[in-house]
């Protein structure tokens, strides 16, 4: 079970989602990626997309307007 961090600070849609998708492809089942986001738009499509894929998703608000989206590849 590996853990990866994806720095998407300062990036607007749809970049964070595209990067997340690419990262997920490289990962194995059980691996976790932490996507760091500070654009609110990405907070809508990144978790939504990941859940639609059937992955587990949790969000931490690390600071005002800064989030970590934690995605576990489940299949």
């Amino acid at each position, binding site marked *: 079970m590996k853990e990866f961090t994806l720095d998407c600070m300062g990036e*607007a849609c*749809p970049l964070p989602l595209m990067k997340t998708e690419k990262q997920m492809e490289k990962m194995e089942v059980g691996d976790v990626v932490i996507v760091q986001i500070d654009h609110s*738009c990405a907070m*809508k*499509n990144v*978790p939504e997309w990941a*859940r639609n894929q059937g992955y587990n*998703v949790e*969000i931490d608000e690390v600071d005002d307007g800064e*989030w970590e989206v934690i995605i576990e590849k489940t299949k």
Partner: protein
Amino acid sequence: MEKKTEKYDVVIIGGGAAGLTAGIYCGRARLNTLLIEKSLVGGLATYTNEIENYPGFPDGSTGLGLMELFQKQAKKFGVKFKGTDVQGVKLEGDVKVVETFRTNYEAKVVIVASGGKPRLTGAKGEAQYLYDKGISFCATCDAAANSGKTVMVIGSGDAAIEEGMFLTKFADKVIVSVMHDEGIMDCNEIAKGQALANPKMEFIWNTMPDEFVGTEEHLNGVVLKNTRTGALQTVPVDSCFLFIGYVPNTEIFRDILDMNRPGYLLTNEKMETNIPGVFACGDVREKFLKQVATAVGDGAIAGYAAEKYLAESEIFEDQIMGSELPGIVFLWNAVMPECRCLLPVVEAFEEKYKGQIKVTRVDIYKSKGLADRLNISEVPAVVFIKDKCIQNVLTGEISLEKIEALIK
């Protein structure tokens, strides 16, 4: 992975305007409150660029900005936030369980404020191009990425037309597919006039999407079907925005909470659902108008009702049903003289049976909750309770002798 369990007084599902307002009321009532939101706190309002009709902001506000203020206020009152989605609920009984993938949250009250999500067209190829592959639901989010491009908007309601006009600030051309006859739109007249006069906007009447087409990577066109003739036309576009209404987020409550056919939850004016201790507020409810302003009203009622429910539960379980002694409950209404004049009678009874019968007074003026739990619809009334069960009820003429007869 073993699931953790955490306990709260109140768990609110959904962090839009309704859920945040319920949170503000619960937090301010010093209830231990958790709000669970699956994506961005603020809900649907954050998809709107301008909110001009929420009172108190004469210069307007962005949806995101307004919701950030709501959240700040909820945090001030100690509401905790958790960013995850709810996978299941167990709502029957006194302790309710809200399940997420890592934690089960136990609460005495659950407030459902899960709102709605954008409706899909159901056209062929739709699933393949959702989100970053060309089909979007959020002009505010994705407008900048469409600078200099051609985009399509599906729908003619307020959201479709207003967001479509917002998109013209970025895109070269905004093509709107409208299912109605030429000139007929679902939006307000002001928006309609502005949209028809906007040189960057083009309308294709009597059409609905039939198929979304493109490469493996991205959408590059929408096949529209004429609703009258059935004729198909392919319109090349770089992306497509769907604004054809919403469906409620109520899948996890199916067969648990009462809902209407499209899935909106049914409540009374106190936001109570069919299960005691479970409230619903905001867009997820069946109601006439879905706006931030009405969501706030719903949330306030749900938060207040939750507080009342918890206070009444405590009195009911501890004082009324939890007593070792047999007891009587005197239900009265402070504004009714015929109730007030009985207070000395109840006092005399209490004095006479001190140490033998416990006396509880319940004023129903502010809330009928305890009366409902005791099945009392008329006051004044006296209920005799022994062995944690209702034994006898007295209504109508009440006197010391009659109360004494009741407990015999």
